[in-house]
């Protein structure tokens, strides 16, 4: 087991300030302390070599959890074992074995070419020359940035910079990688390249990867398993493609019509999710798919017909909206 989390919680103190100068003056003398429970008693386990998507809406507690698991933050309560260590004890042996990449933070020296920062990391991680050159050669080849090593970081594009950040994070060949929105702000090609890279890296090095991203393509492309948290609580832990099973009692019927049909006529067959002249998507109860399909084919001018599950991202979005904890599929 690479990661074992047991009832981990983290709360932050904060205070509110109402609008205006008067309230600022009031705040100078009195501040009502409030508690924000960023993460509430979450528990899960991750096996060696797994690639797990860690999902949730903004402010759900994903980054806070990753920060606790990488030792950046102390939890308020609960336990975690990562690679056999308690992360917030920040033991050197633990730090030598993992890496964290944050899409919005960088470790490279801005005014220097990336190879200076990479060399610094070589010394920080106590790598010998051969090991360093080998890993550097492999990573720059895979990410196609060999020619950019001597270019100042400030002159690189966002995508190129992120690739260099990845190399800096992986130069010591970590067993465990936390990726916090690694493709944020990148164009589609750079996102694809980075996804391909991690797919390969996970397969080749058997590294465990925990990924947070708001891009579904990142999650669908890389992770079989997802952990979803909302308002600090775990709401789903399981197979990505079974997310809908938790609550989806409906299916989608997609129709191509030979002639246009009015919406009120379509509503007799199911909830109209989308509609234009010839294309219609209807949502129908899962248990009634057979009867509804027959009725549609009998009464509507159908030229093409398709039955589909609710898309995964829609299921995830519904989970984001749900407040109650649901371990049904865990």
């Amino acid at each position, binding site marked *: 087991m690479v990661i074992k989390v047991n009832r981990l919680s983290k709360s932050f103190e904060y205070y509110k300030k109402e609008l205006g100068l008067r309230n600022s003056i009031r705040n100078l003398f009195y501040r009502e302390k409030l508690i924000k429970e960023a993460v509430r008693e979450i528990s899960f386990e991750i096996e060696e070599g797994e690639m797990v998507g860690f999902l949730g809406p903004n402010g759900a507690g994903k980054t806070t959890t990753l920060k606790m698991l990488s030792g950046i*933050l102390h939890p308020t309560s609960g336990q975690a074992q990562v690679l056999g260590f308690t992360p917030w004890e920040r033991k*050197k042996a633990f*730090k030598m074995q993992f*890496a964290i990449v944050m899409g919005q*933070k960088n470790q490279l020296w801005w005014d220097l070419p990336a190879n200076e920062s990479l060399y610094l990391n070589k010394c920080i991680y106590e790598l010998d020359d051969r090991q360093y050159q080998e890993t550097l050669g492999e990573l720059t080849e895979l990410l196609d940035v060999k020619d950019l090593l001597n270019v100042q970081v400030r002159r690189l594009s966002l995508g190129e910079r992120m690739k260099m950040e990845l190399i800096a994070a992986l130069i010591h060949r970590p067993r465990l990688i936390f990726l916090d929105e690694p493709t944020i702000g990148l164009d589609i090609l750079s996102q694809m390249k980075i996804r391909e890279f991690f797919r390969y890296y996970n397969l080749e090095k058997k590294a465990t990867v925990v990924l947070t991203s708001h891009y579904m393509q990142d999650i669908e492309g890389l992770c079989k398993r997802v952990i979803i948290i909302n308002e600090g609580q775990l709401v789903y832990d399981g197979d990505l493609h079974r997310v809908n099973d938790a609550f989806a009692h409906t299916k989608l019927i997609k129709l191509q019509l030979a002639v246009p049909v009015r919406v009120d006529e379509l509503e007799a067959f199911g909830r109209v999710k989308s509609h234009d002249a010839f294309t219609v998507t209807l949502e129908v109860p899962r248990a009634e798919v057979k009867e509804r399909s027959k009725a549609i084919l009998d009464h509507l001018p159908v030229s093409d017909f398709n039955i589909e599950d609710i898309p995964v991202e829609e299921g995830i979005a519904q989970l984001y909206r749900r407040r109650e904890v649901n371990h049904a599929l865990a």
Partner: protein
Amino acid sequence: MWRWGDRMNELWREIKKHWLIYRLFLKNSLMAQMEYRFNFIGNLAMESGYLLVKLSYVVVVYRSGVSIHGLSPDEILLFIGTFVFLTAVYAGLYMINNFGLRGKIKDGDLDLILTKPVSLQFMATLRQADLTIFSVDALAGAVMVCIAWARLSIPVNLVTVGGYLGFLGISSVVSYCLFLLPQILSFWLMNTSAIAEITDSFWDFNNMPMDIYNRWIQQIGVFILPIFVVTNFPPMFVLKKMPSVYLGWALLLPFLLLGLVRLAWKRGLRNYSSASS
């Protein structure tokens, strides 16, 4: 016994590793500054000009031939040279990191360095250097000290040179700790610019030998807020004007302050809340 030996070996390995990384920090800082060559040369020129202004005080002291509280112009030059050299250490090696620390704490920029297998305090407080300030001031300070040393006919032997360098080392540690401590408060208070600016202005208390202040101020400046230890002790040692109680205090103080800084740092770090991303 073996365990003790292993620990010592491990400690020695860590010291060597941190020294190697520190040299890389200095090299990277210098290279980063040199990327902007006009700015780099401009800074060198500005720092040299600033130094010339400081040197004009020395000229005044020599021209007038005055002695300050029994110190001859040559002795004053030794004090000023020491002050200029230690200003190089403080302003060139510590200040930029000290001033940046509260921003790092407030904006969550300690996140990534917290995960590196080196001392966080080391990474956060020594990562950057301004080597234009350091090189100009250190060179000028060293020249002044050498001139004063020769004019005062201070013998060059292991005791005087070793002692003076040792006290410079102590002063460097003391100034690192003294000016870092107020910044560590940022872990609790987030913004400590007011406190930091006040303590930073204390540096100028070292401009002149502490003998110009009355006895009470001297005692406070040595034992309570030990700012006078920084630039007064090295010249006092070679001029044989150091009371034995000061000698003992000078040997004890760096350990006390380093311990205090470590304690405050560790406590503060528990309060680190990063920043939302």
